[in-house]
């Protein structure tokens, strides 16, 4: 019995260890090859010769004009913050109203919002481009932020309204007896209690905004002065996809910071994901 159990544990650990290694190999290849010249990448993709290793390729990628790294990070970070501000800022009052009004109309309204979760954002981008054009927002950051926020609102609002339903109504009532208005109750009493679910929505929306490629590419346009991480990588890599001296350093620069953030915040990110799924 004991030997059987030890064997099982050993088998389990081996399987998991081999799989983990397989998951990490691409990262290893990317990091190692970011410091090597093309010839060496082709000859020995896995090894690294410290005599010839150099940071010049990373420096070249850093200075690339098609992918301005620092600006790319700034634009992507701006999108994360701005889209979350719009999506969360509008979803909180709407979810509050929907959760607290026991009328059929508001239940229908919730379903109307939830239906948006099943519309693939990048597929509806083509007609959205024409809506943005008619609003004069095509090719602008506000237009991009509005579109991306619109795709985040259904999920955000859905989890918020489910969360607010769990908060006791007596809180609102006590505050309203004390003479607080709707907005006051919402922002000073309900919103602070929503912190866990707001954090969940923020993290999930942030990942979506950070990694979105099609929306910035189509709405800002390939010739735009604004490049996100993803559109920048596309501009720098897609035409030189076999010039590995450019590909690996560019990819490394694009993923290093987000991986760092992930390693530091992994508990919150993965916890947020499962919290969002349980509520959804």
């Amino acid at each position: 019995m004991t030997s059987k159990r030890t064997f099982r544990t050993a088998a389990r650990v081996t399987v998991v260890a081999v799989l983990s290694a397989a998951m990490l190999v691409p990262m290893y290849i990317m990091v190692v090859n970011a410091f090597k010249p093309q010839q060496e990448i082709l000859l020995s993709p896995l090894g690294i010769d410290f005599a010839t290793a150099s940071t010049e390729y990373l420096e070249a990628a850093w200075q690339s004009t098609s992918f301005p790294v620092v600006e790319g990070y700034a634009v992507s970070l701006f999108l994360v913050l701005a889209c979350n501000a719009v999506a969360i800022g509008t979803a909180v009052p709407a979810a509050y109203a929907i959760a607290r009004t026991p009328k059929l109309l508001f239940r229908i309204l919730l379903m109307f919002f939830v239906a948006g979760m099943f519309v693939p954002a990048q597929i509806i981008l083509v007609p959205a481009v024409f809506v943005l054009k008619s609003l004069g927002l095509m090719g602008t950051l506000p237009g991009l932020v509005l579109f991306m926020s619109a795709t985040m609102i259904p999920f955000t609002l859905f989890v918020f309204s489910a969360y607010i339903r769990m908060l006791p109504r007596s809180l609102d009532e006590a505050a309203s007896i004390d003479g607080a208005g709707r907005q006051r109750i919402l922002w000073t009493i309900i919103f602070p209690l929503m912190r866990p679910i707001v954090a969940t929505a923020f993290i999930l929306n942030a990942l979506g905004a950070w990694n979105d490629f099609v929306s910035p590419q189509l709405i800002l346009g390939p010739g735009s002065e604004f490049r996100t991480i993803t559109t920048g990588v596309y501009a720098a890599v897609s035409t030189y996809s076999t010039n590995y001296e450019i590909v690996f350093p560019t990819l490394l620069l694009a993923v290093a910071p987000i991986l760092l953030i992930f390693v530091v915040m992994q508990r919150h990110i993965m916890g947020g994901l499962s919290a969002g799924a349980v509520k959804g």
Partner: protein
Amino acid sequence: MPRTSTSWRTRAGAFANGLLTVPALAVYVGLLVVPVGFAVYYSFTDYNGFPSRTPTWVGLENYRRIADDPIGDLHPSVWVTVAIAVVGTLLVNAAALGLALLLRRTTPFNTFARVVMFYPHVLSALIVGFLWQAILGPQGAVNNILGGWGQSTLPFLADPQWALATLIAVIVWAQFGVQLVLYLAGLQAVSPDLKESARIDGAGGGQVFRHVTWPALAPTVTVTLVTTVLSLLKVYDVVLGLTNGGPGDATQNWAYEILAVSFANNDIGLACAQAVLLVLVAGLLSFTIIVLRRRAEEGAESLG
């Protein structure tokens, strides 16, 4: 009933609450619902997207073009999309559930493994595609290693069938970690007492899984199936980075047809007809899965 709550039920109270939904409604309707409406309208027109031209009504012509497929490019893309959605969903969920069972206990080793399985999700799909292209391409790392060993190279991205299999494998690599986290959360909800009593009654590991764990996971399975199918139906970034639809049109899926073919060729009417069909299929499939899974979930509730 507390008396103050009446203010929420009066017509004036409801109207004031309605006002709170206006900002969210404006953004959502303006940039998601109206575009869906536009998509439906344009799908019945011939329109090249230039502001100087107005869309001309052609009725069902775009849908007929999709059904008849005169150039022979749309029907293959349907099969690519179905292959990715069906095979990908099965593999993603099998891998995620299997690993969730292996990693269910929280030990430092398991926590590390979970992070390692999950991390591709924080990378953008486009970058995942480019990275694997550099690894599996004809000049890529794997083929150079094989060449160094004196072996012949493998056509991961050069042969049509290999390319589709590679694409699905890369998608599974990038996506199963998310579903793994969901399955782990679902496993937390499986009652340990129920498992213990099943074991005391003499049930083996397989039987405990089949009769206790699996039914209790039913709601989780519904969520993972719907989210996987929805995300696999619309994959685009990873296709663009990994194969750019090639070789030929071997890995061009429906989303690629919409964005990189019809829209890029200024065929807005056709692109919108394709988009409308995809939205309908995505909605219908999700709805079907939810309805079919409801029975399994009811079983889970009576069990819990």
